[in-house]
């Protein structure tokens, strides 16, 4: 069967790009918000606890910051600054926006309320309409571990740590002692076992 290359998706990850205009005077406020978000790690806990984003970033591009590399290149003449958002998340677009809206509505509103015509992240219908309007598609997407979600990666790292410790500590045990230690190892890792593989189909 010939596989279709879907450029927004690679394995379990979806590449989202979104760009929104902001009035220039609002940009320093958003800088400050991001500075605080970066400096106070507990503020990122909701994002971390969602555990379905490998990597995400917000990039503010000021109106005069689009690279201009040659006199023949026409200079941009923009009134707005722009906020660009890139995310590498697991699951489908709808699941992602639903989860964002349900769990992170305050955080999202704090970030995007400075963008023109942002309707708020709740209720979800106008929020999805807005995201659909400002999103643009990816042309090529590479993922080094396409069969693994963020949770798969975290679970695998826990299993590996436990496995390495068990392998080291069980080197010189008798069979009976080994069996006992093995059972303790199983209890330790049982919630993190499984194999990575295909993602479920969903919308």
């Amino acid at each position, binding site marked *: 069967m010939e596989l279709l290359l879907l450029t927004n998706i690679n394995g379990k990850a979806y590449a989202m790009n979104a760009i929104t205009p902001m009035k220039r005077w609002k940009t320093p406020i958003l800088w400050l918000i991001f500075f605080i978000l970066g400096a106070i790690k507990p503020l990122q806990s909701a994002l971390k606890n969602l555990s379905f984003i490998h*990597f995400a970033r917000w990039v503010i591009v000021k109106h005069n910051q689009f690279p201009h590399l040659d006199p023949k290149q026409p200079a941009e003449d923009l009134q707005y600054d722009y906020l660009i958002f890139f995310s590498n998340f697991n699951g489908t677009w709808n699941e992602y926006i639903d989860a964002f809206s349900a769990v992170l509505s305050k955080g999202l509103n704090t970030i995007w309320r400075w963008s*023109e015509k942002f309707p708020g992240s709740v209720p979800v219908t106008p929020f999805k309409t807005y995201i659909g309007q400002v999103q643009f598609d990816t042309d090529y997407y590479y993922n080094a571990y396409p069969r693994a979600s963020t949770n798969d990666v975290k679970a695998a790292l826990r299993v590996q740590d436990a496995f390495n410790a068990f392998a080291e500590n069980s080197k010189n045990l008798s069979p009976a002692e080994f069996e006992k230690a093995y059972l303790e190892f199983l209890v330790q890792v049982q919630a993190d076992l499984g194999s990575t593989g295909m993602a479920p189909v969903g919308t």
Partner: protein
Amino acid sequence: MANQSGQIYGLTILAPILGEDDHLDIGHATAVRWYLAGLPQDHTGPFAKISSTHFCRLVVMDDVVFVGSPAREEHLKSRYLVFESNFDGDLDTYLTRMAREIPDLVDAVWKHCVGYPGVADPAAFAAYMKKCQITTTFFFADVNNKTVDQTLKALQVQSDVSHFIAKNQGKPAVELQSAFRILLERMTKAPAPLRGGKDSEKTAAEDRPYDH
């Protein structure tokens, strides 16, 4: 530094694409898209060779968006090639590796961009890319202390351990211990997992033919 989270670097490049040329059958932006559309996404793809790349994307950004009145409608005068990458280590090493290890990809894509100096001089390419770099304002990396190969290795260990446990349920202690030693030996000799996976192992379901 906003470009960095732990040991992961978040690179954002906006490279202006050359203007349309009447002598070309297709424009530069379209040529980039056609090229990218045919590029493998798995372990045979170019970025699998740059072993420090966790995720990356290439996007032709045609324009900014107009979100409706009363917002002002405005447009870009150039299209921009967006390169977004999440990788281990420092920027100079990464850009130099791109020029040296995947010159065909770099050349095929960035030759359509303004000011591209080629890959013959990796330092010149790195300097060019830095001119196109936009500092990341806020960078989130859920796991930011493992390299690509460490992550792949952990996933391989998890899979091997899961299979081992399922296969050896209820075995006497002596057999279990012996099997475990064999597992350890096999894991030591196992080849490194493929970066980027194998497209041929995917199923139609994994590729999710629709998303919303």
